[in-house]
């Protein structure tokens, strides 16, 4: 491969910004300077999709209506554990207005026995809410009437839904053999090949950062101080405002699926596999979706059911979950019991970290506590043992930094405790143990903005309402999805389009792509039409893991660059110059040597030999290579969050007054969109810290609060002041050097709040959500 050497911005402006020379493929575009010198990238560009969303014109999956469309609904088990002896669909099938019925032969989205020999006619029921069968009818109401007519003969079995109960030797077993889960849906899943004993599977001891290192025993011997503590987190449910669902339109040689998904490519591939169709005959469209947060990567049982009902009825099927189904069956952030033992020298240097965790993703895998403890601090000796515990409850799913949010809650409180034991300021301790340059800058810029120096000793605020300050930090890898392609087209009528199957989960991917293409072509973002979320276009990355921006913006830029060169070739002779001497700026193509030789970009398009030109580019390997495989790039995305709380020691009520969130995402592309995402991540973290909790009833195995009435999320009144600092961090690893922000925004908040609560009341609360009851208990007031 031909290569060339280019110099790219490298480092943090205002701190250590310089340049780095890298050898890159010869067809890569020249390096962009830092954002200050760009026109549209790094600016507060208005969202391209705002008008459609404020006028009601935006069509979400739940808004799709097709001629002849039927409504699908699914029968779900009311029992958490049972065998099915028989299912009688005859009355449902005859119900007027019913057009098709279907019984599941297997269910997806949960762990599956590794050796599937004991499978009966129907899948065993393993959680209350597991789908059994479905019907398609003229209306939702008729479909629900028909569900009532289905007769299921169950053999009831004992069950367990509690994380600790499930670990006891006498606990009813969820699985009787080893299990695996292929479709863990974008990051929630566990390691393969691990053994299950009782309901406990594991341990998982390694990650893409490697396995255990050093010698724990020696490490703890070398420590001056050892901290040992256990932290607990609850199950949180995603609560996307639009529930999961699809509309399946099955035509003889082409199935079109409108899906509320953050992964169009994966939904296509799964549907093609289930129904044994060529992928090219399955088209998935997601024009707009109402949130996902990690739970909407897969086709799901609802998608499989809609497929069968569409195939059987010959009519389009809409199947959207209702809010209860969403809570009990479509994913959650697993809970955790997280044990940490950390050894440190007097100066704060860590000598050993030992981590062990148990969590339950119900009938699914992926209840670990992530890799933050492994990667964020320097410790020569480290080991982790992460166990999945099966319970008869709905499966977990990926959610913004899967595992790491639970892990950070424990680790960052441990560091806070350790700082106090060592008589060090929490920031000073991290300055000693954390080698990340970006987090160092973030800590100190954040501390200044937050006025960290006003932090007092724990519980030193007089009066009944006590203020407290806390901080926590996080790490998220730069993950790149190589199978990411964009096509840029220009038309003779002046239109410029970018096309990719990548979807906009709502964060603003469409706007970001318009900025990148406009920057490269010397146009304005509003000149660019963004057509994405459709698998007719080239494959794009999933909207998960903060992958999208880092994966699709370099191909978007490179495709625009290639298209620009094609256009230069076409206009060079007309401008009496060489194509290599042409450049774009402000809607013009001009000679770099003689600015009088120029033509408006749109005029140049009119002169094209063909009606349209097109260029396609895929994600290049990272400049300088990947750290692991072809997905994990060097250098994590660091973030630091500060929290100020007031705690009413009479009522136990915690109010978060202020958050300062300091974040990096490489080269920021749209400042307002990044801020919006950080606000949202912080508030999901705040709900996690204080309110949200999936409550299971041990007697019935049902979720008690499977609605928006009793499952408490933050509302507008409960929102603290949030001040955001975005730190540019250039690493020179792609043609845009940009990364996502979704995961980092969400990781550190709960730990920062918990540390602030400790600082306020002087007693630590080891379990979230930090409810008034837990605060009063900690204060010995109940």
């Amino acid at each position, binding site marked *: 491969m031909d290569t060339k050497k280019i110099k790219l911005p490298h480092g943090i402006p205002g701190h250590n910004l310089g340049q780095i020379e890298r050898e890159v493929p010869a067809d890569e575009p020249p390096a962009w300077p830092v954002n200050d010198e760009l026109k549209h990238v790094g600016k507060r560009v*208005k*969202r391209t*999709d*705002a*008008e*459609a*969303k*404020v*006028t*009601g*014109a*935006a*069509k*979400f999956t*739940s*808004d799709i*209506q097709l001629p002849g469309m039927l409504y699908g609904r699914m029968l779900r088990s009311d029992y958490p554990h049972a065998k099915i002896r028989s299912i009688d669909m005859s009355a449902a099938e005859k119900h007027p207005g019913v057009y098709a019925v279907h019984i599941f032969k297997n269910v997806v989205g949960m762990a599956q026995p590794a050796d599937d020999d004991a499978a009966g006619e129907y899948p065993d029921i393993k959680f209350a809410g597991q789908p059994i069968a479905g019907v398609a009818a003229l209306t939702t*109401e008729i479909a629900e009437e028909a569900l009532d007519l289905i007769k299921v003969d169950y053999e009831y079995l004992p069950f367990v839904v509690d994380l600790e109960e499930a670990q006891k030797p006498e606990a009813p077993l969820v699985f009787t053999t080893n299990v695996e889960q292929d479709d863990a849906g974008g990051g929630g899943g566990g390691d393969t090949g691990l053994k299950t004993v009782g309901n406990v599977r594991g341990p998982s001891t390694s990650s893409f950062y490697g396995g255990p290192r050093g010698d724990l025993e020696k490490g703890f011997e070398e420590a001056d101080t050892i901290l040992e503590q256990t932290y607990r987190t609850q199950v949180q449910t*995603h*609560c*996307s*405002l*639009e*529930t999961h669902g699809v509309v399946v339109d099955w035509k003889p040689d082409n199935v079109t699926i409108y899906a509320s998904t953050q992964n169009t490519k994966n939904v296509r591939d799964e549907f093609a596999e289930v129904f044994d169709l060529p992928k090219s005959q399955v088209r998935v469209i997601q024009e*707009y*979706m*109402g*949130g996902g*947060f990690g739970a909407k990567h897969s086709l799901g049982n609802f998608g499989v059911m809609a497929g069968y009902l569409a195939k059987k009825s010959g009519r389009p099927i809409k199947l959207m979950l*209702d*809010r*209860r189904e969403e809570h009990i069956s479509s994913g959650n952030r697993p809970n955790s019991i997280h044990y940490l033992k950390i050894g440190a020298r007097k100066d704060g240097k860590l000598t050993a970290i030992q981590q062990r965790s148990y969590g339950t993703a119900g009938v699914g895998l992926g209840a670990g506590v992530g890799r933050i403890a492994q990667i964020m601090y320097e410790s020569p000796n480290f080991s982790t043992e992460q166990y999945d515990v099966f319970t008869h409850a709905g499966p977990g799913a990926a959610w913004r930094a899967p595992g790491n949010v639970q892990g950070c809650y424990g680790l960052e409180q441990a560091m806070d405790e350790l700082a106090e034991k060592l008589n060090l300021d929490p920031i000073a301790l991290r300055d000693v143990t954390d080698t990340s340059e970006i987090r160092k800058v973030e800590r100190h810029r954040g501390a200044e903005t937050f006025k960290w120096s006003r932090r007092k000793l724990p519980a030193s605020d007089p009066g009944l309402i006590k203020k407290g300050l806390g901080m926590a930090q996080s790490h998220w890898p730069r993950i790149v999805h190589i199978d990411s392609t964009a096509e840029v087209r220009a038309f003779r009528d002046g239109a410029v389009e970018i096309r990719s199957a990548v979807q906009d*989960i*709502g*964060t*603003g991917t469409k706007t970001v792509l318009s900025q990148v293409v406009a920057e490269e072509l010397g146009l304005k973002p509003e000149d660019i039409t963004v057509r994405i979320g459709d698998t007719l276009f080239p494959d794009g990355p999933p909207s998960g893991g903060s992958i999208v921006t880092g994966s699709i913006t370099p191909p978007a830029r490179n495709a625009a660059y290639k298209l620009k060169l094609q256009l230069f070739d076409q206009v060079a002779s007309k401008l009496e110059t060489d194509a290599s001497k042409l450049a774009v700026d402000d809607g013009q193509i001009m000679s770099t040597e003689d600015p009088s030789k120029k033509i408006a970009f749109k005029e140049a398009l009119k002169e094209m030999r063909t009606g349209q030109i097109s260029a396609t580019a895929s994600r290049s390997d990272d400049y300088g290579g990947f750290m692991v495989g072809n997905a994990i790039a060097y250098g994590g995305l660091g973030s630091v969050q500060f929290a100020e709380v007031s705690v009413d020691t009479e009522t136990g009520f915690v109010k978060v007054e202020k958050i300062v969130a300091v974040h990096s995402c490489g080269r920021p592309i749209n400042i*307002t*969109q990044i801020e*919006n*995402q950080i*606000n*949202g*991540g*912080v*508030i*999901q973290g705040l709900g996690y810290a204080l309110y949200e909790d999936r409550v299971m009833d041990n007697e019935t195995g049902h979720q008690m609060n499977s*609605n*928006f*009435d009793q499952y408490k*999320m933050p*509302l*507008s*009144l409960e*929102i603290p002041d*949030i001040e955001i600092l975005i730190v540019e961090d250039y690493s020179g690893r792609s043609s845009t050097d940009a990364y996502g922000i979704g995961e980092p925004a969400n990781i550190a908040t709960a730990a920062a709040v918990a540390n602030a609560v400790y600082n306020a009341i002087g007693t630590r609360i080891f379990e979230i959500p930090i409810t008034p009851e837990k605060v009063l208990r900690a204060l010995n007031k109940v």
Partner: protein
Amino acid sequence: MGVPISVTVNGQHRESEVDSRTLLVQFIREELRLTGTHVGCDTSSCGACTIIMDGKAVKSCTVLAASANGSDITTIEGLAQNGELHPLQEGFKEEHGLQCGFCTPGMIMTAVQLLEDNPQPSEAEIRHGLEGNYCRCTGYHNIVKAIYHASRKYKEVSHG
């Protein structure tokens, strides 16, 4: 059993026969095909289905279509006039008062009444007014800014 109803929706007179159990939001979405009004829950909690009915912001998932007979309804699709966005729509657009956009129509319709009742609300009053609307993406800050933005515009208009 069909119940005849006659309503005015976004200025247009509509007559129909509805099932007695049909919710107003279903009627609006499925029969009138005005799908900008969304459904996010079934407990009147999320506010995504908020519309203006006889001058009041109501959650259309909690009204039977039959009982809306004779009423004057505005949905998100009826807010812009002659191609001009309503100041609230402009505000949500300008201030990035949205991400996924699913809660947005309900937020805007709730805010229509909020500004109707209190044209110059404080930040706290705006936050209080949004108590019946969930947003899971934005953390509400830019929604509050969007409504504040619109209230300033109302002021400009009223002071001519």
